[in-house]
């Protein structure tokens, strides 16, 4: 066994590979060989490390030095300075966003130190394509324990007591689901894994499948033992080729070692697992639609009862769980239910993985204990909103979820507390929005998604989502009417009450929460034809407050239409007919001189006297508004 003196864990998740980490690996291997260090220093390509916005990232052990945004050109310097001379390269280290202080050690970077890793416990520490790495980290010990020392009832009991709830979004108690299926008599049962991850912006499951595929397999073996299944399928969306590749490799290696297939570990238990590629629709992530898809039919849900535990895939008793749910199972079996409950709250135990994205400094994947206040995630782990912009809302749960405003940021992240706000924890997508986001547009964006993805089987969803989308589109185009908000609200409640599956039942949530917390935006779109953030192009006018304008010329530089006139020392002016409302001038102005007014201002501004400095108040008076 070759003894290395240092390990370079280079992130090989999809994000970092897109940033060039495969080229980095080749460059590192070559440089180390040239300097004669290839027997001393080990370069390992791991799965997603989580800090995706700073990629490509790597961690050097044993010192635990974290490098970010590494380029191929940096490789010779890293090898020379750090590996040979022992002087870590400061330029590549993490700089904390507010004070720009360098934090060399990964365990001290708040993004990492505030996390508690359970489902992601092997993140960045194992080579995803080597089963030995997984075994070295206690891999397959839990499966061995479940197969040799525990009865199915004992396994179910442990999982029930742990309080683990389905991590795919619905939060159904996992132990209970297994128990319901275990009770059903059947000659053939199926254990299924939902790797479809359809929520836009969610990549928790992708990271687990890419970084630690064996933990999913081990979780499924334990589940299969509990319900007495001997065939399993992992439904992975086809848009995740790396996850599919690594899962297949993991299955092949496990089979070779006798950890899957017939007579696992000599215990007489059999389990075969196959991958099924996703059909390409969001609705295929729904339990019954997924099973129809595996059967080769068009993915469409069906009414329940009968529940899949009684009649699932091919009408046989089946259990479907999410990737992240399975990732938690081995540790629960090894460490016990009490250990799992030691984090989280009474009703929401353990940890949850979130995909943090949007207007936030530290974009990436995090795992935190349930019950952590939202504020801590956004500011301490996420590093707050960058570019001096203000926080506006955070969208939880993707297109099925809702927006949570600033005054509710102290809400603890648990299934029961978040649902009180009108949002849902969902599968873990967290999109942060700042003052440049228009909440009506956000609602429209999510409805565009759900209306497109609706399978069309039930009228409330098929017709309801389309009608809501049309109404939202009209509002953003300035054709909204009095009573539209109430109509949206009523339709939402009806669609929720009567849709066949979760897609329709949750599609109106973004609309309901944005109306609840940002009703003033809807009202100004409808009544005043004014989108105050400048997103809805038909509802805004960009103009310059000529008294505040310092004539610095920045807006002129960025205007794609050359619509801004005014030489140095002359207050600038936007030519309304040329302006396409792209908002670039507003975003770049440091003197708060570019203003966004209602649609009606475009007419009044055409009649401005030539280059006379008008104060903001005079312009407003012309438009009939006092501010």
């Amino acid at each position, binding site marked *: 066994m070759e*003894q290395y003196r240092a*390990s370079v864990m280079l992130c090989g998740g999809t994000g970092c590979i897109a940033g060039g980490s495969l080229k980095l690996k080749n460059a590192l291997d070559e440089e180390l060989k040239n300097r004669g260090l290839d027997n001393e220093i080990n370069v390992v390509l791991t799965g997603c490390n989580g800090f995706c916005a700073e990629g490509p990232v790597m961690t050097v052990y*044993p010192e635990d030095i974290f490098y970010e945004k590494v380029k191929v050109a940096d490789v010779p310097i890293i090898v020379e300075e750090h590996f040979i*001379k022992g002087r870590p390269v400061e330029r590549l280290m993490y700089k904390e966003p507010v004070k720009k202080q360098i934090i060399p050690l990964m365990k001290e970077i708040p993004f990492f130190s505030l996390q508690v890793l359970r489902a992601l416990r092997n993140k960045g520490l194992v080579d995803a394509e080597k089963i*030995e*790495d997984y075994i070295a980290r206690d891999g397959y010990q839990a499966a061995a324990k479940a197969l*040799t020392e525990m009865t199915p009832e004992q396994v179910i009991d442990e999982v029930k007591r742990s309080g683990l709830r389905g991590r795919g979004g619905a939060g159904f108690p996992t132990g209970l689901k297994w128990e319901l299926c275990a009770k059903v008599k059947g000659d053939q049962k199926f254990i299924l894994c939902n790797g479809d991850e359809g929520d836009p912006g969610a990549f928790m499951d992708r990271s687990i499948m890419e970084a630690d595929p064996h933990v999913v397999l081990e979780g499924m073996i334990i589940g299969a033992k509990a319900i007495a299944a001997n065939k399993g399928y992992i439904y992975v969306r086809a848009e995740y080729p790396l996850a599919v590749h690594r899962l297949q490799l993991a299955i092949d290696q496990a089979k070779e070692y006798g950890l899957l297939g017939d007579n696992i570990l000599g215990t007489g238990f059999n389990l075969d697992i196959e991958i099924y590629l996703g059909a390409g629709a969001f609705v295929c992530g729904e339990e019954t639609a997924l099973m129809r898809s595996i059967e080769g039919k068009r993915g469409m849900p069906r009414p329940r009862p009968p529940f899949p535990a009684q009649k699932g895939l091919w009408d046989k008793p089946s259990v479907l769980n999410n990737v992240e749910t399975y990732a938690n199972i081995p540790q629960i079996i090894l460490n016990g239910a009490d250990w799992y409950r030691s984090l989280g709250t009474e009703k929401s135990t353990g940890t949850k993985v979130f995909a943090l994205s949007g207007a936030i400094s530290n974009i990436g994947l995090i795992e935190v204990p349930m019950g952590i206040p939202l504020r801590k995630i956004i500011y301490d782990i996420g590093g707050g909103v960058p570019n001096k912009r203000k926080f506006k809302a955070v969208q939880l749960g993707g297109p099925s979820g809702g927006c949570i405003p600033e005054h509710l940021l102290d809400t603890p992240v648990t299934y029961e507390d978040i649902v009180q706000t009108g949002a849902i924890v969902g599968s873990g997508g967290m999109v942060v929005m700042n003052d440049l986001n228009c909440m009506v547009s956000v609602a429209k964006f999510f409805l565009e998604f759900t209306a497109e993805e609706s399978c069309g089987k039930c009228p409330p969803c098929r017709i309801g989502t389309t009608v809501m989308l049309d109404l939202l589109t009209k509002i953003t185009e300035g054709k909204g009417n009095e009573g539209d908000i109430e109509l949206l609200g009523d339709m939402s409640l009806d669609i929720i009450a009567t849709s066949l599956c979760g897609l329709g039942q949750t599609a109106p949530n973004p609309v309901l929460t944005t109306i609840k917390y940002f009703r003033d935006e809807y009202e100004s779109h409808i009544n005043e034809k004014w989108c105050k953030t400048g997103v809805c192009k038909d509802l805004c006018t960009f103009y310059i407050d000529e008294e505040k304008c310092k004539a610095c010329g920045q807006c002129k530089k960025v205007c794609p239409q050359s619509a801004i006139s005014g030489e140095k020392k002359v207050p600038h002016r936007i030519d309304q007919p040329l302006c396409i409302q792209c908002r670039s001038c507003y975003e770049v102005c440091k003197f708060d001189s570019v203003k966004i007014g209602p649609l009606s201002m475009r007419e009044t501004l055409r009649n401005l006297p030539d280059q006379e400095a008008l104060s903001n108040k005079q312009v407003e008076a012309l438009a009939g508004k006092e501010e």
Partner: protein
Amino acid sequence: MGRLTIEDLKRIKEDHKAMLTLREGGYRAKVTVHMGTCGIAAGARKVMEALLDEINTNKAADVIVTTSGCAGLCSKEPMATVEIVNEAPVKYVELNEEKIRKIFTEHILNSRIVQDSALVMGSETAY
């Protein structure tokens, strides 16, 4: 490798202990080979290679090796600092391949400081 038994699972974990210590921590001894320009010129690379060879031959999974820059005493290079966990670090000077191998056997494996090659015990920062 063919089908595994439960004992095999434990054995593979043992075999990888060195790799785990490197990535997770939990080492018993840490050796820092000083490799500033003075060190490299004086032959620190050979000292490093000899040390790694000793670790390999003895399968010492709980010993890690790092490098650092110039320690300040250029005339006494090659130098190495040996830190056993919970003990004060010991700086060794004027090393060569033979001496580092002796230090490995005597100090790291058997906790006996090699007086001839040692310069000082402790470090500049006061504890």
